[in-house]
């Protein structure tokens, strides 16, 4: 048992390291800082990058490092040279067609590798040849469809890269090549000439797809690719397409597909069981977009008034926070002081003007901003009545934190509608399948992001007072979302503070699922964040003890007016970290 564990751990580590290196290279080549690997799948701007060509998934068991490099370079080129939305728009309907189209587009991008990157060119070639070798070795080539796909891949690749074909496969594909050559000759020529024009290239690719469709027996074409998986997927070699974004409704980091990697952490597995019926209607939105400008101005005024009228000593709060938030940093000397260290260069002054005694220097300390604090506010209906003091509390804390050099982020979560809205209706229409998972349309609101200074985010923060946004809430998902945002920050210390007055509450999901479905998910999400240790998680419960969910929580009276004492308690909670 222990052996299997260490082996799994090793593979997992290896995967992490590979993804770090490959990911960094992809980001550097494509200039897209938002690129990530999520469970071995390429992801761009937080969504699946929709790069699904079959040869881009090297296998830990079979392939070497160079194959991973090749796949990484291929992905980078694809991001660089392919317009994803145009590609999706031009995508043919049949499953085999999609596979071929995806492959051809990928090969087009790979042929555009810059001559400044000879190493990348070698990696790409290595990866493709390796893939061909595995294709040859598998029994996929034994059936007509497999052989045809293989032939097209080989022929197009040779044509686009002007590189010789694999020797071992040359004989294998020769008959097939002869058969389809006269059908696709023109298209091949057109593709080669138009590698830089995605649209024209796609029109030629469509010709090839059509030829393939017409040559295939009817029933082959009807079968969905996923069924094909069964007969195409032998000895670790598979041709199936990854599911596209719509099918992919899991919002939580998936463990890799390799069975060894799957299910290492129990929590992760539990989290993975959490289902979402559809993410189609979900929304992440900047708070300013949710209210009219005139409304925002009004809210700003109210906020300013609130801030003015409170009895909190913000500078003192900042000083207290400075003791908790990473310390100050030495940033040079203050000269001409009347006490401190003697400043050598001023010694002559002591003789020339003996009355002038400011010859000392002291160390100058500046607050170190290596910390980010994110506030995640529950925007459920019951928070409505307390929002003024709570928003005031948040803005005071933000102000004080900014004074000690920390960055702050204010987020909120709610749902777009009551009773599940469109998602619920969609579920009803599709015949109420059992255990649908989360059923509503979530709305995640960004009131202030960490890069915006408080002064610039006033309008966004004002929007906290817009009461008609407050509906229901899915805490677990919001927590993971906030944590994900924090993880992308470069600051050393990351603090997430949840402010809530109740447990997750969403009537549609609660009715359609087992009891405490959402509660459990919140518990799992919180414990995952706490166990990962990268982020410090705290919760402030207003009129409610949140300790069943969070390790560090604080129950507060619902405040009528914000006073110094409330911060004392919050500071104490923050100080207890690591306990």
């Amino acid at each position: 048992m222990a052996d299997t564990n260490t082996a799994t751990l090793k593979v997992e580590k290896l995967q992490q390291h590979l993804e770090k290196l490959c990911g960094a290279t992809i980001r550097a080549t494509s200039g897209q800082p938002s690129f990530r690997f999520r469970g071995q799948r390429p992801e761009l701007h937080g969504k699946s990058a929709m790069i699904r060509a079959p040869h881009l998934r090297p296998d830990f068991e079979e392939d070497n490092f160079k194959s991973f490099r090749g796949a990484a370079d291929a992905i980078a080129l694809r991001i660089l040279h392919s317009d994803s939305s145009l590609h999706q728009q031009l995508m043919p309907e049949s499953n085999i067609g999609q596979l071929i189209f995806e492959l051809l587009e990928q090969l087009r991008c790979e042929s555009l590798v810059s001559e400044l990157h000879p190493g990348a060119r070698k990696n790409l070639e290595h990866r493709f040849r390796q893939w061909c070798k595995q294709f040859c070795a598998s029994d996929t080539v034994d059936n007509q469809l497999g052989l045809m796909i293989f032939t097209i891949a080989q022929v197009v690749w040779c044509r686009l890269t002007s590189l010789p074909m694999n020797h071992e496969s040359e004989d294998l594909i020769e008959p097939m090549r002869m058969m389809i050559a006269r059908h696709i000759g023109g298209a091949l020529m057109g593709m080669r000439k138009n590698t830089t024009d995605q649209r024209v290239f796609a029109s030629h690719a469509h010709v090839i797809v059509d030829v393939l469709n017409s040559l295939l027996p009817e029933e082959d074409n009807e079968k969905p690719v996923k069924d094909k998986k069964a007969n195409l997927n032998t000895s670790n070699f598979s041709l199936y397409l990854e599911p596209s974004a719509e099918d992919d409704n899991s919002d939580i980091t998936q463990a890799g597909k390799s069975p060894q990697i799957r299910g290492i952490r129990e929590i992760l597995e539990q989290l993975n069981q959490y289902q979402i019926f559809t993410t189609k209607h979900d929304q992440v939105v900047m708070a300013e977009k949710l209210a009219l400008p005139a409304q925002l101005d009004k809210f700003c005024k109210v906020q300013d008034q609130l801030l003015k009228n409170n009895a909190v000593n913000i500078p003192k709060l900042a000083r207290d926070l400075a003791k908790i938030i990473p310390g100050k940093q030495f940033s040079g000397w203050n000269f001409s002081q009347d006490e401190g260290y003697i400043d050598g260069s001023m010694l002559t002054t002591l003789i020339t003007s003996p009355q002038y005694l400011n010859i000392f220097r002291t160390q100058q300390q500046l607050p170190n901003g290596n910390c980010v604090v994110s506030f995640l506010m529950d925007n459920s209906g019951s928070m409505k009545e307390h929002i003024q003091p709570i928003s005031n509390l948040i803005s005071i804390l933000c102000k004080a934190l900014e004074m000690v050099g920390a960055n702050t982020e204010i987020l909120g979560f709610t749902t777009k509608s009551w009773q599940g809205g469109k998602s619920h209706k969609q579920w009803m229409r599709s015949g109420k399948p059992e255990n649908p998972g989360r059923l509503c349309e979530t709305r995640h609101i960004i009131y202030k992001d960490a890069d915006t200074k408080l002064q610039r985010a006033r309008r966004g923060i004002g929007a906290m007072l817009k009461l008609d946004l407050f509906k229901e809430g899915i805490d677990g998902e919001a927590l993971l979302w906030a944590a994900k945002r924090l993880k992308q920050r470069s600051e050393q210390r990351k603090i997430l503070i949840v402010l809530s007055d109740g447990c997750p509450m969403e009537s549609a999901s609660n009715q359609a699922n087992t009891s405490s479905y959402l509660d459990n998910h919140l518990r799992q999400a919180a414990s995952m964040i706490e166990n990962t240790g990268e982020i410090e998680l705290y919760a402030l419960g207003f009129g409610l003890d949140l300790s069943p969910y969070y390790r560090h929580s604080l129950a507060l009276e619902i405040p009528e007016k914000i006073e110094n004492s409330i911060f004392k308690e919050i500071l104490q909670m923050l100080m207890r970290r690591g306990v």
Partner: protein
Amino acid sequence: MSDIKIDQPDLMVSVRDVFSINSMLKVPAFSLRDEHVPEIDPDYVFNPEVTLAILAGFSNNRRVMVQGLHGTGKSTHIEQIAARLNWPCVRINLDGHISRLDLVGKDTIVVRDNQQITEFQEGILPWALRRPTALIFDEFDAGRPEVMFVIQRILERDGKFTLLDQNEVITPHNQFRLFATANTIGLGNSTGLYHGTQMVNQAQMDRWDIVTNLSYLPCEDEVKIIQGKVKSQDKPINVETIRSMIAVADMTRKSFAAGDISTLMSPRTVISWAENIGIFDNAAVAFKLSFLNKCDEAERPIIAEFFQRCFDLELSESWADTANQVMADGRH
């Protein structure tokens, strides 16, 4: 410091001829070269936008600040323009220890007629103010804000300068020019790259008439610069190699922007890499010595990946061998 003999610019030179920039502009210049005029670097490549901004500073008496990442040649840019206009030029490197006395002047002890006496010695600021010089404050954001208020008044075009210690008011020479270079835009060290920079007082920032930004050059310009720098070497480097070198530098810059690595290759690093190739005759060794060893150990494998892409060579820091080993182990 020796005095400057020339007084007023006596020529008008065409920007198109001197700087090869497509512009009808003519700018004043001196016909005689003073010893304070910097040496001309014939291979220097001018960035049109920045050049025009600096020239506006010279011809229209504007205060110009050039901001940009390190190693992009901000100070050299100003110097090379001054060199071509024969404009005397003084560079001051600011640091956290420069005090008001250093800039304005202080009482010093001198021996005169075998007697020790104290005497006021003028600092660089009054000296430059009285002469037709271009004064360049390098690393303006490293100067401490309270000290930098010394120059607050001369940042204004007709601002006089009062020497409190001497009870004297200095009217600046009408050909006195003031420039500054800085890595940050006066908002402190926000990227974590520039340790020791200060927040600049915004009232002061406001007084700079022109703020121009010098970022990394287009690839072709950078190639030209490197070629110019290495052409005198015994073993010239071919253009393909230079292009590959810049491709590596470009990847490090993008990677830095994405937050994967914390060091990036400035044009200066590329130049020293090229020079080191001349010494060691091996691109990989020179790369290691001029850049890789400056990087965090944990980031070296990533940079080795970039190098592999552009040169198709493995560095010893590369993870390739380890990876294949570990993968082979994993299969057993």
